[in-house]
């Protein structure tokens, strides 16, 4: 199995708080990789550093054999990492279809002049953008809501739309930040089906999740963060039995 992403000694400090301390992890191509940990363990911080939204204090990331331009979100997206957000961030006043069309931005080229003169190339690209966006809406199962404003979609559909928008950038790695947060059991089961489908279609998935049951059942491998440090990284069965992990989740017996 080939390595898709290798994070080496990522560090991040907010004032006096060491949010991430030399976190290193390796994600293989084609797997679902989970990142779990108690509240405040640094999962989302790691996500934000990886996707370029936060600057880092140390470390680097090799993605697909190339060093990733950390600190530059659009370069990270262009390199092939797409993400969703813990508290959904859609373009609320654009339609579902338009949201996904925005996702095509990074894979397309048309500029101001092309748009002004409606060149043949521009029209073809526009048509292709819309075709692909419709395809992706169908893929995540919300094609019937294409012309509704993103803000008017149900919570579960908004999650799906965010995934469709991320997929529109044609990523190699899809990073999902707590996709099951706030979902009921049915919605979670459907989401799980969607994520497994993504993996089966050849995508690598990085998953932050609170729902331990979902993570344990879904992930091929996972890492556990606690107080900004990685305390375990292995297949779920092994991680589950790790005493450090149990302590982090249930509290230590000492003192």
């Amino acid at each position, binding site marked *: 199995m080939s390595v898709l992403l290798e994070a080496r000694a990522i560090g991040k400090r907010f004032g006096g708080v060491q949010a991430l301390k030399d976190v290193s992890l390796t994600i293989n191509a084609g797997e679902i990789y989970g990142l779990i940990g108690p509240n405040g363990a640094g999962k989302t911080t790691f996500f934000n550093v990886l*996707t*370029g*939204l936060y600057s880092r204090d140390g470390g680097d990331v090799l993605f697909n054999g190339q060093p990733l331009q950390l600190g530059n*979100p*659009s370069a990270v*997206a*262009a390199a092939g990492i*797409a*993400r969703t*957000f813990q508290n959904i*961030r*859609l*373009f*609320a*006043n*654009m*339609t579902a279809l*338009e949201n996904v*069309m*925005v*996702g*095509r*931005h*990074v894979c*397309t080229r*048309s*500029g*101001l002049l*092309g*748009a*002004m003169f*409606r060149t043949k190339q*521009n029209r073809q*690209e*526009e048509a292709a*953008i819309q075709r692909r966006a419709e395809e992706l809406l169908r893929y995540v199962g919300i094609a019937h809501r294409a012309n509704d*404003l993103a*803000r008017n979609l149900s919570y579960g559909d908004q999650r799906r739309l965010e995934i469709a*928008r*991320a997929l*529109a*950038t044609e990523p190699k790695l899809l990073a999902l930040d707590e996709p099951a947060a706030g979902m009921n059991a049915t919605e979670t089961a459907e989401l799980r089906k969607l994520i497994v489908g993504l993996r089966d279609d050849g995508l690598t998935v990085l998953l932050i999740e609170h729902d331990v049951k979902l993570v344990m059942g879904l992930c091929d491998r996972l890492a556990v963060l606690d107080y900004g440090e990685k305390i375990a990284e292995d297949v779920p069965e092994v991680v589950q039995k790790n005493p450090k992990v149990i302590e982090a989740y249930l509290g230590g017996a000492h003192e």
Partner: protein
Amino acid sequence: MMNKLLTDKPWWGVALVAASLAFLPFVVGAAAGPAWVRVLDFALLYVLLSLGLNIVVGYAGLLDLGYVAFYAVGAYLYALLSSPHLTQNFPAIAAMFPDGLHGPIWLLLPAGAVLAGVFGILLGAPTLRLRGDYLAIVTLGFGEIIRIFMNNLHRPVNITNGAQGITQIDGIHLGPVALDRSLDLFGFAIPSLNLYYYLFLALVLLIIVVSVRLEDSRIGRAWVAIREDEIAAKACGINTRNIKLAAFAMGASFGGVAGGLFAGFQQFVSPESFQLIDSIMILAMVVLGGMGHIPGVILGSLLLTLLPEFFRYAATPVQQWIFGQVLIDPETLRMLLFGLTLVVVMLYRPAGLWPEKRRSRELEQKRGEVA
């Protein structure tokens, strides 16, 4: 959208609109006098300006309070390159152009657009990290800086002639047709003001087509995405720096074109014409009409140019009719009524008079949640 607007309507509908637009200046001129045709011409210039600002404020959501600076850049470029000012003050230039500087319109308007676009980037580059109020303050300062430069660039070298402004600017010529004189067409005289009306109308139509095409394009969607959620836009791979600069440049270039037309039309420019209140008026047109919605913005700019003029003319006779005498100076009353109109519209139509459908839906929903 524009294409749909044209194709969905029956041909006679389009023909009717075209005919009424074509005859409008004659009807207005005959019914209300040439002063109102002049108002009409200015209204069209303001449509150009507000469509330009609409790109920056309406689409990309970047609050710009110094937009009139780009209007000034376009106007001064035209003024300098088609008036005797430079040849009188610089012997070297006079030697190069013994017949004087008379830049052709087909060169000066695009040059004005490009130069204003460059100034747009100059303004945009240092403000990329700013949003909302902070951006408004910086752009306000930029607008003032440009005006103050125009005011003071007459010493030690006289470039702009300072507060006195530049006079004797050539009127606009389209090939053999001089727009500053009435045109005799088969024994039928078309006044100069009407000729300008047609030129401005043509450019308004051109700019509408450009706006519509931009709105419905990859870059246009990226603008709206930045307005809606900048972080999500970045995560989608949008290079927000370049896309914002494109918005500033594009919006500014419309202002530059309008500026060139203004200089040729007035044949006189001075820093007086490019004050903060003008920037605010253009912004008010965009907001009042409906941000990000082209028909709304056009409506807003027409209303805000025509209403004050209407109040000015109506104030005296109406007072005499009601009170038998003029109690309040028409000039004062005019601004009073104008302000009142703005407040009323914003109270009852907070999304603008003719908002974009999706935006209006959002606001109605919010109101429903409160109630």
